[in-house]
């Protein structure tokens, strides 16, 4: 959390003029997005609007044709390999099904980023893995299991533990609650919220889950017409756009809003 702390007035992520396309199909055009440090931002949008593409582009898995992406103040296109690696060690990504390495146990999975980025004794690495496993709410005996022996919810938790291994500043989550039962989803939301507050994380999450939005997101970025519209849930609720109106005023949204009466927006 340190090397880049000096520029802490800078936003965690700044995307400007982004354009991504597959062949002739343009997914994003002139897209601007700014994520502040320490906030939780939810990316929503209809199917096929390019939510996952946006996330993958920001973390550098997907090439963009125009625009500029800055992570922690570092322009990722201009950065050399060493600088890119440094930024990578300050970001963690949780993929949809955890994306754990299937040939390694959970504890070994969590130690992979540590072994790659940090010099530390093996015993300490193991102790840190222990703490992370417990932090994400996995039982201790899950540590020596292989991903194929875990349930979907446990794989997500293990994936989260691996994403948190280096105590990143930015955490990217791709549909963290998809495929979980409502109780599991609620627990996972609570977990992410708790970790975010404790570790001071900046969280970018793609979600379809309205409960997650109301429960933990400070702001929401709606993907519409190849761009994003960013705002708090309250400010977006008054948008005239029909998709946004349907999204935030549909029966499911009302139910979710009702369920999160205790949550207050920080702004």
């Amino acid at each position: 959390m340190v090397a880049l702390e000096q520029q802490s007035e800078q936003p965690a992520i700044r995307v400007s003029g982004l354009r991504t396309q597959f062949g002739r199909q343009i997914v994003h055009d002139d897209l601007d997005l700014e994520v502040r440090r320490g906030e939780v931002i939810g990316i929503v949008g209809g199917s096929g609007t390019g939510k996952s593409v946006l996330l993958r582009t920001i973390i550098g898995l997907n090439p963009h044709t125009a625009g500029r992406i800055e992570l922690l103040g570092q322009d990722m296109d201009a950065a050399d390999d060493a600088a890119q690696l440094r930024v990578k060690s300050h970001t963690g990504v949780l993929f949809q099904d955890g994306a754990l390495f299937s040939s390694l146990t959970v504890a070994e999975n969590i130690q992979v980023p540590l072994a790659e980025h940090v010099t530390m004794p093996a015993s300490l690495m193991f102790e840190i893995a222990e703490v992370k496993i417990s932090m994400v709410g996995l039982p201790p005996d899950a540590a020596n299991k292989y991903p194929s022996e875990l349930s979907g919810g446990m794989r997500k938790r293990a994936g989260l533990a691996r994403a948190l291994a280096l105590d990143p500043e930015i955490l990217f989550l791709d549909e963290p609650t998809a495929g979980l039962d409502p109780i599991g989803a609620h627990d996972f939301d609570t977990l992410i919220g708790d970790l975010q507050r404790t570790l001071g994380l900046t969280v970018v999450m793609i979600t379809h889950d309205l409960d997650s939005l109301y429960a933990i997101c400070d702001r929401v970025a709606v993907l519409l017409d190849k761009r994003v519209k960013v705002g708090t849930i309250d400010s977006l609720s008054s948008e005239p756009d029909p998709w946004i109106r349907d999204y935030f005023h549909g029966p499911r949204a009302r139910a979710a809003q009702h369920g999160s009466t205790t949550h207050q927006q920080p702004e």
Partner: protein
Amino acid sequence: MAALNDDSIDDAHCRFTAAQDGARWTLTLAGDWTTATVGSIDAGLRTAAPAPGTTEALVDLAAITGFDTAGAWLVYRTLKGLKAGGLETATAGVRPAQQTLLATVASNDVPIPEPPEPANPFVALAERTGRATVDAAIEGRDLVSFLGHSVIAIARAIAQPRRIRFISLFHHIERAGLNAMPIVGLISFLIGIVMTFQSADQLEKFGASIFTVNIVGQGVLREMGVLLTAIMLAGRSGSAFTAQIGTMKVREEVDAMQTIGLDPMDVLVLPRLMALIIALPLLTFFANLMGLLGGALMATISLDISLIQFIRQLNTAVTLWTFWVGIIKAPVFGFVIALVGCYEGLRVTGSAESVGRLTTRSVVESIFLVIVLDAMFSIFFSIIGI
């Protein structure tokens, strides 16, 4: 007490100093205590201990600049160790955020149970051998059971030809047969050349070069043509069958089929079985031709045996049965390759990884079975005398 760590570099450098003051031991931490930095002081911190007779320990965090869970873990572990040694512990200079992290780490100090001890290597070897033997036996039994199901499916299809899915059948004949022609033809042609060259080299010493034609004719028609084609098809189509059916298994398409009332045996297995039963003899015929052509070409070039001479000699060297011996084997090989390919495909469960594993297994198994069957055919033909 002396500083345990080199602290001369800069403010961010992770370091600690220990000081003994009578019965009181003070540990002053400074710099960044983060995942990236704590690795260097871990060993030193583990060995740092107060002098005997110390009753009180104070850990001072005021000079810490950066702090995360790794740093918090070290502080917590140190405090825990001191407490376990019967000392009164206290902390100083802890900021609220650091306090939160310390509390988080403290509540998550849950040791992982030791992984089970690996067994004695000799016992493990014996266990693996036993397991592999039993697995092979089970697999053999299941394959025979699948063979029975397939034969029933074929019998049903012959009784009611409407059950045959002709579009799928022709699709697979095209993919496994027609599309394989270039590669099968090329390989047979090259093997024809190689066989001619090798046998001519030896026979020339006896002045019997013309008998090269006999060797090539017999060799290609009886064995090489059909064997090479079968091996090519096992690699090309047997593996494809396993991968296709396996992927469908992973995506639950096979389950969906069953709930709709479609029998995977009819829909997936039967067209593939029949396709290879039909395609392999045809391909073998083509491979035979190309092999002989390669032989003839090499004979013309290196042995001065003209094409006419080659054909005349071939006519005396082979009988119609020589040709049939090769061709008769082809549908059997085709059946076995498709059988193994489909069987392994249907055995795929859950993960994409098992598709890869079973595809490899399918190829190895079908080539093995083809060669075993070929040997059995050889014995059979020699007994009946053709």
